[in-house]
């Protein structure tokens, strides 16, 4: 049976590591330092002059003013998508809450006035401090109702409560005004209608 060579240490305890040996260079040129110093100066002065006029080699991004381009596939802050008529796409199926590995999504379903939709999320909270931005909720969603394509890569707020993104905060881009008054306003949703006037659902069964 061939001996497995997993361990790099031989039985004698002598390490068999690969070491790159650099030969020590001696001589007058090395001893007087000046050629080496001039070589170094040539490099640093080149960079200095190039950057003195026009900062051509500088790779720094002046962050709050300039932002790094993020790819559309970057998993940023969540967003709840809407239908064309302005309703939330979410049908409160709990798929995302179930799949979420960090248990940061909290959904409470309510009965949708439109009977063809059945449910909608009365409460849809995401605790962004617990979120690990794995994107599994996006994968799990059958309605394409939750996406992570906002491009918000950095969330820096001053209180913990601010990171509890409620349904209405997730609906659009972040608006500080909504944070100061975080209450559910169901303006997106159609006004509750009498059951007799309710729209027929997709199977054409009138609501009764």
């Amino acid at each position, binding site marked *: 049976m061939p001996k497995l060579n997993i361990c790099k240490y031989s039985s004698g305890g002598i390490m068999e590591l690969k070491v790159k040996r650099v030969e020590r260079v001696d001589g007058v040129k090395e001893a007087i330092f*000046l050629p080496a110093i001039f070589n170094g*100066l040539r490099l*640093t002065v080149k960079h*200095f002059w190039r*950057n003195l006029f026009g*900062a051509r080699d500088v*790779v720094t991004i002046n962050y709050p003013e300039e932002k790094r381009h993020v790819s559309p596939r970057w998993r940023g802050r969540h967003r709840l998508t809407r239908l064309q008529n302005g309703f939330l796409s979410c049908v409160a199926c709990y798929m995302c809450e179930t799949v979420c590995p960090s248990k940061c999504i909290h959904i409470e379903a309510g009965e949708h006035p439109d009977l063809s939709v059945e449910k909608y999320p009365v409460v849809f909270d995401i605790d962004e401090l617990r979120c690990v931005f794995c994107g599994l909720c996006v994968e799990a969603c059958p309605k394409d109702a939750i996406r992570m394509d906002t491009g918000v890569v950095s969330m820096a707020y001053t209180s913990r409560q601010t990171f509890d993104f409620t349904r209405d905060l997730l609906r659009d881009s972040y608006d500080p005004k909504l944070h100061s008054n975080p209450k559910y306003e169901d303006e997106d949703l159609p006004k509750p209608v009498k059951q007799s006037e309710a729209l027929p659902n997709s199977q054409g069964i009138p609501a009764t």
Partner: protein
Amino acid sequence: MDFLLEIIMTPAILACLKIAVIILLFAMPLGTLLTLMERKWSAMIQDRVGPNRANIGKFTGNGLLHIAADGLKSIFKEDTIPKGANGFLYLIAPFFGLIAAVAIFAIIPIAGPIGNFTFQVTDVNPGLLFIFAITSLNVYGAVLAGTSSNSKFALLGGTRASAQMISYEVFMGLALMGIFMVYGTTRVSGIVNGQNEYWFGNLVPMWGIFTQPLGFILFFTALVAETKRAPFDAPEGESEIVAGYFLEYSGMRWSAFMLAEYVSLVGVAALMTTLFFGGYHVPWLHLWENAPQWIVTILQILKFTFFTVVFCWFQIQLRWTVPKFRFDQTMGLGWKKLLPLSLVNIIVTALVILTLA
């Protein structure tokens, strides 16, 4: 008006005025500016942006306000004294370095004399020997700070500083012997005027760098070691002994150490200009006959300032290019290489002078 002029021209008051002008309008502002420029220039060398955030409203001045911000910060910062420190020595130590750094400017002329009026605080006879005396005082700041702050790192830094200063002081003097021999004087004005001569008709000015190229390298190395900057920054030794002798300081006293470092940087640059690059003399200006005195003086001040700033830049460039010497390498370089070289330089210079004379 005449009465006022008479008061001003009194030697004592005139000297005070010159000190105020040279130090407050030349050395200190340049030193303060260099604290920022070191950061900006090192950023450029390393392809970074450097400090640019301090602002008043929208105005940042591309980082210029950091000087004011740093100053304000260190004024209002608590001035701590560590437990067990020798209070008095601890408190006065920063100013030894600062005084020594500023005193270099006492004998440096920034423009040629107009009649009896010289642009130099004093032209003492010992001249450069005064410089050696003053730069030796520089070490007291480091040693006192090191011993008095009751910290092992600071003590190590102070010890290293004193050892390094003493070693490099030796051949700093020897390296300048060549200059004394060539120009035949230790007076600064004599050396500067000696550099206004020309070789080959009016082709090459007899600047110190052409008459004493080896002496230039040796003296410059010694001065860089005296200012305790990289590559000879073992006394500060960030990677081993945190900050060396000024480790325990905070607030304005720490700033005094920093300011001393940068003022002595300017001092070194001014000294190199004076001794090796013709001082205030603008080369080939004597070809323009009947040049108005005021134009000549302004050109001289500009030339002196230009070379000083270039040398400040060069020292900073050197700091961000050359890696630090280990302490034994610093000592070895000083005693085993530079000291014999400076002795050789003296002998060769003497032989050349003898053959030519």
